[in-house]
């Protein structure tokens, strides 16, 4: 029988919270990267493209390992965060948000980049002849025209964050109430005898949330294809 207990609710709330934070974190970087890749030419572009795709092909555990080395409390950059601001990313929920953001980054960039690439370049030329600066063109022309793709990409990144497991468990562990998101809670339950029954409700929630996010993402991405 499926009963929603406090542990389940905690995992669901934390998952939603981490996924929303991760999406907010990833969006500005993904939009900027996607725009640069779609609208500009620069030396080393293919290296940047490969770097952006990296989290998609690397095992998430490896991503988590790199995060631990770089952003852990004694890591290359993490030690400065700890010394200067007292911020510890490893084994905390914002570390989980960072891990999810990095893993979902390539998906967000791909969707958003496609929407920037779909914009007729002549719109930009018209705006140039109207005396409009590049930054204003980005804000008032490129961003609104790419908006369905940006929303679709955000939902996709959100869905990916909901399902994130490997990088999260490696970087922030599996701490109830702090870093134990739905996938980690399912994993923990399955480690216990008869834990399958307790996992069912989380599995159902996970499936519903993921399907809703992916369907909404597809709706927005198809709006992009038809409207520009």
């Amino acid at each position, binding site marked *: 029988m499926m009963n929603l207990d406090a542990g389940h609710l905690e995992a669901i709330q934390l998952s939603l919270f981490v996924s929303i934070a991760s999406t907010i974190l990833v969006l500005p970087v993904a939009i900027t990267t996607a725009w640069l890749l779609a609208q500009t030419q620069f030396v080393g572009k293919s290296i940047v493209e490969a770097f952006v795709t990296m989290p998609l092909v690397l095992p998430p555990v490896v991503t988590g390992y790199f995060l631990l080395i770089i952003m852990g409390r004694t890591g290359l950059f993490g030690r400065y965060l700890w010394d200067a601001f007292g911020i510890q990313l490893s084994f905390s929920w914002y570390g989980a948000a960072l891990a999810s953001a990095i893993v979902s980054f390539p998906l967000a960039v791909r969707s958003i980049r496609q929407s920037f690439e779909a914009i007729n370049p002549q719109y930009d030329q*018209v*705006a140039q002849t*109207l*005396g*409009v600066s590049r930054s204003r063109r980005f804000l008032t022309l490129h961003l609104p025209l790419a908006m369905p793709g940006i929303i679709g990409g955000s939902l996709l990144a959100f869905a990916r964050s909901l399902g994130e497991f490997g990088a999260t468990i490696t970087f922030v562990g599996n701490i109830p109430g702090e870093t134990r998101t739905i996938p980690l809670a399912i994993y923990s339950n399955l480690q216990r005898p008869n834990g399958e029954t307790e996992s069912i409700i989380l599995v159902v929630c996970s499936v519903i949330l993921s399907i809703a996010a992916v369907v909404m993402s597809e709706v927005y991405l198809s709006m992009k294809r038809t409207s520009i």
Partner: protein
Amino acid sequence: MKLEFKLQFRPAPRAKESFDMCVEGCWEGELHVVRGPSGSGKSTLLKLFAGLLTPQAGTITLNDRHLLDTSSQVHVSAEARRIGMVFQESLLFPHLSVERNIFYGNQDREFARLLMHALEIDSIKHAKPGNISGGEQRRVAIARALATKPELLLLDEPFTGLNEELRHSLCGLLEVIQNEYEVGLIIVSHDYVELFDALDSSSIHFIDCGKLIED
């Protein structure tokens, strides 16, 4: 208007044009028409004037203002040239209403409203570009370009896709614009040169394979 230019332009390897452009001229007077077969370099010439393409070598001077001189590294950007351009497709921004399109590059709202009234598009100012006719779109595109008060307005095939009545109406409108707003006009057109009463032979230029052939 006085436009002096001498330009050498080699298109990018995968560009539509397969020839090098080499043009030179000193055009005076408010209205000029450039004719030529399809793919002869007409639109490229307009984009070079507008600053949307950069030639390998050359100079452009508009009303004694140096816009380009490759030998002395002068290159006024398209944003700062004060040269408006109406493209072959009207290219109205689809997410903005007619009015917001016209206000887009404009600093003087009152002037933009006067233009909308003069071009008889104030009744459709709240409409989205997708909901207005081709003739209306063309007038909105012209109003949008004029709203920035350019010194020179370039029109790429403005009569394409319009019926005879709309062609005559647009032609009359362009002559009014030229007189009322003191803006030089360069019109690229396959045909319909006879529509302009004010044109003399020195204002009609023929281009083929990237070379200007003066009559």
